[in-house]
């Protein structure tokens, strides 16, 4: 297991952060949602402390949580330095000794909790299943990004207690994990404490990397009905994978095109023409592939065809002329500020410990921070211009219209119903 110790003596706190290099991309059709369901089980107790995971840590003043995405599962604690051993003990016990404490009843209860999480955060939320429709259309059914991390309802219901053992044995062991201890600690001492807790756990086999490929060669138009009043348009393109050439360009393009009042689409669609009520764009950087997305909601009285035309006009203009010097200056200023802001928080989602693990797991280079900043700083107007021309075309994308139930005519012409469950 890779172990990274990072000293930061600003506050009497320490952050523990573990990444397992497994996510929903490691699932199979018919069993989607399992990596996330498994994450829930990691909080249900382990062999040597089988009374729930939260209690002793909260009593010690820790904040803690975990999350699953397509590429990885992370777990973290942030607490006063005096509780470091406790966090290491708890994390190592569930890494080494989870299964003896796991019961069918815990499994079934957490399966119900996850089904309720899905209802609350996806099914009962306006536009909540739109991204599911986009990725299902963008990635073919045998591609590991074809489904959402939360999984399909039928698959979650079909998950069995027996699947848990197999999943744990395949993915949850030191050779597939990376541990960060960051905070007010001494490196040698912290490392000793880590050894005392984790050395006894067998390394286990390292799972093989996945081999995938994907391409889009035409525009596909889809529609989805939802319990909403305002139609919304999703435009999605395949884009470079995380940390690969073009990834930083696409990230910068999302700000330039649609984030903030000064961005091109906000200005054209919301500020000047007032045909949209909101617009945003983002680069979804993932390990095996990326996708870049624009989301725009119609203003009352306006339709999705107007939005699509307005967006395509702006994209055509960008492809023709490239970015302005002002836009480049703003983009670089935002990047510089964001990288410094990222250093403020020690633990938790997106804190320094989490960033170190991202660099460790995806790049095998925990010290990548400076290089990461450098790859953004190196991006020129010419690079952005080329990226816009290369990726954001009208003949290689998914176009999803989300419309109020029963109002199919509000979708863009030639749209076919999307598949979501």
């Amino acid at each position, binding site marked *: 297991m890779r172990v990274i110790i990072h000293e930061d003596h*600003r*506050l*009497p*706190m320490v952050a523990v952060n573990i990444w397992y290099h497994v996510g929903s991309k490691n699932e199979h059709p018919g069993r989607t949602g399992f990596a996330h369901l498994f994450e829930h089980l990691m909080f249900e107790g382990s062999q*040597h402390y089988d009374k729930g995971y*939260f*209690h*002793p840590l*909260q*009593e*010690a*003043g*820790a904040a803690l949580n975990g999350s699953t995405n397509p590429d990885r599962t992370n777990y973290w604690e*942030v*607490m*006063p330095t*005096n509780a470091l*051993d*406790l966090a290491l*003990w708890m994390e190592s016990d569930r890494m080494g*000794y989870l299964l003896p404490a796991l019961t069918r009843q815990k499994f*079934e*209860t957490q*399966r*119900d*909790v996850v*089904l*309720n999480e899905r209802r*609350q955060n996806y099914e009962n*939320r*306006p536009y909540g299943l739109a991204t599911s429709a986009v990725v299902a259309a963008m990635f073919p059914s045998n591609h590991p990004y074809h489904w959402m991390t939360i999984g399909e309802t039928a698959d979650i219901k079909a998950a069995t207690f027996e699947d848990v053992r197999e999943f744990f044995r395949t993915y949850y062991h030191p050779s597939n994990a990376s541990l960060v201890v960051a905070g*007010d600690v001494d490196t040698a*001492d912290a490392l*000793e404490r880590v050894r*005392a*807790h984790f*050395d*006894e756990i067998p390394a286990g086999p390292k799972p093989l990397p996945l081999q995938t490929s994907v391409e889009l060669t035409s525009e596909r138009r889809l529609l989805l009905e939802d319990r*909403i009043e*305002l139609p919304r348009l999703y435009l999605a393109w395949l884009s470079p994978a995380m940390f690969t050439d073009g990834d930083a360009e696409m990230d910068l393009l999302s700000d330039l095109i649609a984030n*903030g*009042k*000064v961005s091109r689409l906000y200005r054209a669609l919301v*500020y000047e023409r*007032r045909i949209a*009520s909101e617009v945003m764009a983002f680069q979804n950087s993932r390990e095996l592939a990326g996708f870049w997305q624009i989301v725009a*909601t119609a203003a*009352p009285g306006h339709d999705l065809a107007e939005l699509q035309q307005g967006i395509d006009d702006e994209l055509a203009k960008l492809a023709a002329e490239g970015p302005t010097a002002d836009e480049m200056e*703003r983009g670089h*200023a*935002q990047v*510089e*500020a*964001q990288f*410094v802001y990222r*250093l*403020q*928080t020690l*633990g938790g989602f997106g804190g320094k410990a989490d960033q170190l693990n991202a660099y460790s797991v995806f790049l095998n280079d925990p010290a990548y921070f400076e290089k990461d900043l450098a790859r953004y700083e190196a991006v020129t107007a010419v690079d952005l211009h080329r990226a816009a021309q290369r990726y954001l075309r009208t003949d290689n994308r998914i176009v999803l219209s989300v419309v109020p*139930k029963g109002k199919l005519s509000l979708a863009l012409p030639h749209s076919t119903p999307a598949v979501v469950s």
Partner: protein
Amino acid sequence: MSRERRADRTRLPTVGPLPSFRFSHVHKDRLSNRLSLWSAEHRSLPIVTFILALPVGSSADFEGFEGLSAMTADMMDEGTGNLTAIDVNAAFARIGAHLESDVSADATVFTVTVLAKFARQALSLLADCVIRPRLDVADFDRIRQLRLTRLVQIRDMASAIADRAIMQVVYGTHPYAHMALGTEESLRQLTIETVKRFHSALYCPSNATLIASGDLTPGDFRQMATDMFGAWADAPCQIPEDGALVAPPAAPVHRLVLVNKAGAAQSEIRIGEVGLARSTPDYHPLIVLNMILGGQFVSRINMTLRQEKGLTYGARTAFDFRRGRGPFILQTSVQSDGTAEAITTSLREIDAIRTDRPPKLDEVEVAKAALTRGYPRNFETAEQIARAMAQLVLYGLPDDYFNTFALQVAEVTVERAREVAVVHLHPERLATAIVSDAAIVTPQLAAAGLGEATPLLPRL
């Protein structure tokens, strides 16, 4: 720890003595126009956060003009001097920043975080925006339309509808009953003149506090503030009677209401009553009590509804302590066929903590530890520290409040936790609001003896 040592798995490691923590020193100053300056140095990174805080929130909205304070705040980055709305946002973007405005029931808070090298530019822009906004009618019309559209979108958001429903039922005609966004009807009453009147009456230096936190000395801060805010005229503030302090209703308008959403995938539930003001002497016992009842993962309500019954992804309770008496609210979202069970269980838990299952000693100790031991993590970033100072300002707390917090929590006894449960939770006053599919929920409510829910259309 020696190299040979291996963890003892027969028991949990003991936790050593708690490291000490002190909140940054708060430096206070005042300009000649009576603008208060508060700052705290926090030099670990070259970052500064500025906050301009006004003790004026949605409870100060003129009657019939609900949404006015939020609309006014929203207009502050829509142009100043020769700069259009786009120019203002471009100027912030060039220094890697943006102006954030938050309007709560009690306060309006503007926040800008920047790299220290851009502190002057950021403060200058903040001053231009807040002191000299253009307040053009065309910008007003556009922003109001966006806010009206937001109201349309909220109709589809079950959780936001539930929040509105419970406040409406618990607070009746009190200023806390309406949301900062206002309603379609009240937004249509607003004009640019109303906004100008609100701005000139309530945005005045004697009513405001400028806060700085981060890589900036109090001396440099004073100089910058003098340069940028010194010319803000000390016009008399026309502060109306504080809406927050109007007496709330003694009982809810209805005990059980249902907002029908045909086809909803779940039931959003809120259970609440009028709670306490931030100034209550029972503040610390109440936050300990709340931790036990529903304020953390291992709370009674979450453990029962989520971990035991699997009915929900999560359930929690909170006292929202405000300048006036803010609400106590339980919130959860449950599978529709478990709606009545979740409500019955929640009501029973609230009742039990003041009757047959009062807080136990170990529960009180765990709650106190959870509240205090991890406390320093609330003060990691310049923005967290600035927001903490804004709390001191807005609620009149002592400068050393964050250093004495742990001691005050430590003094809470099991007897005090039990006492505040009996005194401040009132099962007979609790109202329940449900947003769900009436066809699924109504029979359950009847079968569980909860009675018939009054249909409610939240004011939007």
